[in-house]
C-alpha cells in the first residue's frame, strides 16, 4: 500500500531542507538510533502530571501541535529505528511550554484495502500504551493534536526524546505486521510545526475518507465531501469498490 508515499517523501524533504538550513546553526537536526530496551520506570496508576510538577509541556492546547502516523509497504521509505529531533531536546528546552510536532513512519507488510483501516486504528492508539514515569500524554486523533507533560523530576533524571522515541517504537514493533518504524519530533518553533500542517491535512483527509467508508457505509459519491480525495487516490477508490461489493452481496 503506497497511499501515503507522497506524504512520507514530502515530510522527508522538509526535514532535509531543515537540516540544510540548520547545519551548524543553534538548532541542529539530530538523529538517534532507538534503544533495544528502554530503561525507564513505568508510570503508576496516577497518570496525570500536574502543572505544578511539570518541567516541560509539549503541544499544550494553547500552543501549536501536529501529530500523525503514515505507513507504506515500500521498505526504502522508512529508516528503521531512527529517531529524528528537530529542535531542542527535553532537557534543553528553556521555556515551560513549546509547540510540538510528531510524525511516525511505518513500513508494514500485508496492508490491504480490507485491513488497513483497522490496522491504522491499532497503530494510532498504541501511543497511549507507552507508560513512562513522569510522562503524561493526551491526544485527539481527529485533530492530529498531541499534548504531553514531562515532570520536573523526569527532566532532571534525563527523560529525553531518545527514551521517548525508543519506547514508542518498541510499542509499535509489538505488532508483527510492522517491519520498520521511525519517528520524527519537532520542537524548534511554531513555524517548524506549522510546516508539517499540509502533510498532516492530506493524511487526515485520507483517514477521514476511510472512516466514512467504514463507519457510515455511505457510497453516494456525488454527495460525499471526500469525493475529490477518493478520486485522486487509487487505493481509496479500490477500498470503496470492495466495500460496495461487500454491501451489495450482503443485500
Amino acid at each position, binding site marked *: 500500500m503506497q497511499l501515503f508515499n507522497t506524504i512520507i517523501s514530502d515530510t522527508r524533504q522538509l526535514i532535509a531542507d531543515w537540516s540544510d538550513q540548520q547545519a551548524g546553526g543553534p538548532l541542529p537536526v539530530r538523529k538517534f538510533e532507538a534503544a533495544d530496551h528502554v530503561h525507564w520506570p513505568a508510570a503508576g496508576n496516577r497518570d496525570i502530571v500536574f502543572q505544578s510538577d511539570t518541567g516541560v509541556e509539549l503541544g499544550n492546547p494553547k500552543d501549536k501541535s501536529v501529530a500523525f502516523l503514515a505507513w507504506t509497504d515500500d521498505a526504502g521509505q522508512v529508516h528503521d529505528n531512527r529517531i529524528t529531533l528537530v529542535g531542542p531536546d527535553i532537557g534543553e528546552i528553556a521555556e515551560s511550554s513549546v509547540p510540538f510536532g510528531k510524525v511516525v513512519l511505518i513500513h508494514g507488510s500485508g496492508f490491504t484495502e480490507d485491513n488497513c483501516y483497522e490496522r491504522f486504528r491499532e497503530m494510532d492508539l498504541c501511543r497511549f500504551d507507552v507508560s513512562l514515569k513522569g510522562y503524561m500524554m493526551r491526544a485527539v486523533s481527529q485533530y492530529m493534536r498531541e499534548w504531553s507533560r514531562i515532570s520536573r523530576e523526569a527532566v532532571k533524571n534525563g527523560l529525553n526524546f531518545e527514551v521517548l522515541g525508543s519506547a514508542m517504537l518498541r510499542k509499535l514493533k509489538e505488532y508483527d505486521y510492522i517491519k520498520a518504524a521511525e519517528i520524527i519530533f519537532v520542537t524548534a518553533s511554531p513555524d517548524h510545526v506549522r510546516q508539517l500542517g499540509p502533510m498532516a491535512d492530506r493524511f487526515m483527509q485520507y483517514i477521514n475518507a476511510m*472512516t466514512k467508508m467504514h463507519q457510515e457505509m455511505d457510497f453516494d459519491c456525488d454527495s460525499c465531501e471526500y469525493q475529490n480525495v477518493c478520486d485522486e487516490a487509487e487505493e481509496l477508490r479500490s477500498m470503496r469498490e470492495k466495500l460496495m461489493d461487500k454491501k451489495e452481496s450482503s443485500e
Partner: protein
Amino acid sequence: MTANEKAPVIIAVCGKGGVGKTSISALLTRMLLKDSTKRILAIDADPAIGLSYPLGVPVHKTVDEIRNDFIADVEKGMTGSKEELIRRLDYEMLDAMTETENLAFLAIGRPEGDGCYCQVNSLLRDIIKAIARNFDIVVIDGEAGVEQIDRRVMDMVTHLFLVSDASARGRNVAATIDRVAQNKPGLKKTGIFFNRLQGAEEMDALTAQAPLSIIGWMAENALIRELDRDGKPFPDVGDGRIPFPEEAVYRFLKQ
C-alpha cells in the same frame, strides 16, 4: 496501587438549595488545601458554577461545553471508534481542568440531560472517575436536591457531607438524600452540617432533633455574605475571619 496511590477520599457536599453548600464546599476545600502534600480536586456540580468564585479560580470550559462541542461534531459526521472518542474527551477534560499549586478545579455546568447521548454522558462520568484517582481528596459541590445521588458519578463518593440550615425543609432534604444514598456501594460516612445558625442555642435545639450524625455548625457570617455578593474569593481558612470548625470536620473525615 502502591501505598502512596491509595484510593481518594471523595466528599459530596449536598443539601437543599440556598443552604450555603457552595460556601461550605469552598471552606472545606480551603481547609484541606492547607496540607500542601495533598492533591485536592474540587468539582463544581452546581449548574450556576458558583464554587469558582470563593475559590478564586477561573473557569474557561465546563464539562457541559465539552459534551456540546462533541455532540455537534458527531452530528456533523465527525466520528471515530469508541476508544478514540474516550481519548478525545480525556484530552478535553484535562484541558478544562484549572490547576493551581495543589488544587485542580473542574466545572460540570449544566447537568447531563436525557436523550440519545447517554453514551457520551457515560464516557464523561468514567473519565471524571479516572481523573479523580489522581488525587488524595475530591470535593464535589453538588447541585440542589436528591437527583444527582441517583447518577453514577455518585457511586464513587466515600463521604456524604449534608448541609442544612435550621429549617425543617433543609433537614428533611438532608434526610432524604441520606436515605437515597445508603445503597451507594462506596459510601463510608454520612453527616449533617448546620449552616447559617443564630448561635449555640439554636444548635443545641437542632441536636435534639437531628436525624443524622452532626459534623459541626457555623453561624451566619457577614463576610461570607459580602464576598458572595461581590463574587470575591474567600480568605484562607485559619485567618479567623470566617470561623470554620476545622477539628470537627477533620474528625468526620477521619473516623
